């Protein structure tokens, strides 16, 4: 981190204090003063132990302070800043999760041009370019963070946007943050900027089920045969009962294929059930919600770390996590659910419905609804942080003020000392003697 000067032309003024110091320190010939007899001075020099010699002039303290103060003042006028202020700030762009941004952008005339996300990226780049100048961008899509220069959009897939978990928008309400949304936010941020892509309703496929694809257009849904591979529920081979049976039943009802082998890119996995940890021993703990409960053995001290949101827990120990497209379970063993079995099945079915991602190439109707006109709002600038660095310019001025005050004080002290010495000297002149 170096120093940069806003007005380097002022540095020429440094020649003034430098010149003063140079002149003051030049060896000079002492002025000649005649004296009646040298004897007195010779005796004094002998007593004090001073050898008469020409010597380099010592720069007095007040002059050194004065020159230092002038130099500091010149630096202050040149307005130094930390180089950090000149490096481009980094802007965090937080992208709305879900499929709404993945659908095509439909303009007012019905013209389509890329996705809402691509449109939003262009808006963000435009907003940042206008308000921040050169900047680096850090795009946040769920857990995925991509850093780019200002000129390029992030290489994010639609799946990354869809799989992104919910965003704590309040946490991101600060200067230097841009929200990338499909529609204006319900609650306007205090400091963050935002961009809403807007866009008219985007007709298109909304679901794939049982070899047919449902297409939404102008308020009606039509079905067409689907000739692609069906969406898949990916089950961990160690998925415990009764989760395995329930998941398979749910997949069958939703027209999904089930697999226990991780598929490649060609497989459209819309939900995966995974298991963490090892099968534990111990007393079963009863976890429950929505009017049902289920016993499960929890491994002691074997807390499982995952960034997904808890869905089922026992006294703070999570046994099931959820995130878009994924359900994560502890290995158990799990017992049979107690209470109303239908309540358990309904609760889990709703969970899986919620977690299921839209099949590839589709988006729910809600995501395709109109988002209105494009809009944006410029919040607090990210430059504010670097503006504080401009306060560097005040430091030299402060130092200059202190140094000049000290110089004045030192000069005054010297003058008083000289005056006192003069008075002492004049008091030595002798009055007359009378016989």
């Amino acid at each position, binding site marked *: 981190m170096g120093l940069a000067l806003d007005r380097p032309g002022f540095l020429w003024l440094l020649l003034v204090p430098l010149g003063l110091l140079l002149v003051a320190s030049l060896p000079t010939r002492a002025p*000649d003063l*005649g*004296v*009646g007899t040298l004897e007195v*001075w010779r005796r*004094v020099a002998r007593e004090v132990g001073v050898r008469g010699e020409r010597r380099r002039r010592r720069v007095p303290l007040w002059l050194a302070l004065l020159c230092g103060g002038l130099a500091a003042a010149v630096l202050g006028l040149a307005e130094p800043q930390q180089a950090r202020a000149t490096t481009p700030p980094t802007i965090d762009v937080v992208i709305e999760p879900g499929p709404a941004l993945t659908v095509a952008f439909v303009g007012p005339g019905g013209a389509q041009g890329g996705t809402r996300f691509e449109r939003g990226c262009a808006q963000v780049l435009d907003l940042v370019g206008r308000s921040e100048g050169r900047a680096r961008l850090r795009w946040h899509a769920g857990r995925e963070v991509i850093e780019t220069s200002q000129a390029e959009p992030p290489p994010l897939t639609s799946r990354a946007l869809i799989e992104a978990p919910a965003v704590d928008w309040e946490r991101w309400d600060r200067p230097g943050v841009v929200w990338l949304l499909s529609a204006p936010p319900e609650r306007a941020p205090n400091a963050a900027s935002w961009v809403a892509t807007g866009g008219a309703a985007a007709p298109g496929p909304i679901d794939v089920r049982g070899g047919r694809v449902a297409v939404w257009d102008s308020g009606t849904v039509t079905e067409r045969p689907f000739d692609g591979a069906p969406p898949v529920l990916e089950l961990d081979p160690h998925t415990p009962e009764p989760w395995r049976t329930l998941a398979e039943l749910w997949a069958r009802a939703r027209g999904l294929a089930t697999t226990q082998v991780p598929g490649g890119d060609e497989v459209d996995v819309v939900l995966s059930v995974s298991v963490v940890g090892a099968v534990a021993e111990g007393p079963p703990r009863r976890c429950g919600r929505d009017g049902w409960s289920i016993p499960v053995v929890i491994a002691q001290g074997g807390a499982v770390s995952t960034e997904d949101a808890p869905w089922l827990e026992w006294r703070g120990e999570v046994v099931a996590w959820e995130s878009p497209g994924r359900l994560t379970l502890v290995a158990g063993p799990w017992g049979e659910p107690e209470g109303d079995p239908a309540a358990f099945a309904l609760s889990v079915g709703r969970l899986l419905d919620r977690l299921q991602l839209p099949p590839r190439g589709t988006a729910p109707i809600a995501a395709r609804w109109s988002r209105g006109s494009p809009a944006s709002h410029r919040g607090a600038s990210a430059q504010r942080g670097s503006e504080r660095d401009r306060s560097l310019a005040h430091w030299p001025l402060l130092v200059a003020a202190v140094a000049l005050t000290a110089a004045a004080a030192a000069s005054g002290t010297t003058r008083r000392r000289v005056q006192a010495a003069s008075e002492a000297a004049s008091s030595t*002149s*002798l009055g007359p*003697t009378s*016989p």
Partner: protein
Amino acid sequence: MSADSERSRRVVFDVDLRRRFEAFSLRMDGARRRREGPGRSSHFGAGEEWAGFRPYRPGDDPRQLDWNLLARLDRPFTRITRREVSEQWVLLVDRSASMGVGEPGKLQASAELAAALVGLGLRRGARVTLLASGRPERRLSRRTDLADGLAWLEALTAGGDEGFGPGLRSEPVRRAGRVVAIGDLADASARALMELSRGGREVLLAQVLAPHELDPPLGPVRWVCPETGEALELAVDSNLRAEYERELNRELEGWRARCAVHGVRYLATSSARPFEDVALELFGGAP
């Protein structure tokens, strides 16, 4: 040599100075006349001359009471006297090279003091002799000789290393009732000066020093002795200056003590002081 030091070596009496000399001698003489009524004059001289009588006032010297008038008129009268016209003053002015320093120069200040005393002496009817080494003496006896005396003084230039020189043993000095020696006393013979006071002669010694000799400036200074040409360069700081002041005080105290022993009036003064102040102080307020 710089223009300043050249100026210091010479003596110039401008119109204003000449007026001040005249005014000073008039004022001092008037003060003496007013003062000399009661009591005895403090001045020495070869003799005193009767001038008249006035009624006796308490405090008058009884020896001046005229007993004949008292017997004749039955009232006391005091004899009024004035100095004899034959009173002799000698003014010795040091014009050695060391007197050519200072601002104003020591020689200029010494000449001004001497000029004031010449005016005063002539106004009192004294015979005044001016002496300086290397210069022919000048004897003055009438008031109209003042111009000659000023011209003689104005022609002085600082130079040489003789100080008061052989003038201390000259014939006018031996016959004088009052000798005033003015100089910086650098390398002066204290013994020869003190011997002047023998035989009841009134001796006054004015030591004139340049302001920078009394109060040396701080910083580097090359001290030069004009008589020998020797130089000593010193960076004068407050310590060195304090030590110098102590040493100078010792030197001046030595002169003061010697003069006190021999009954010589002594004054050390700065060449920057007005000659009127110096003269009054030298004579104790009553020249």
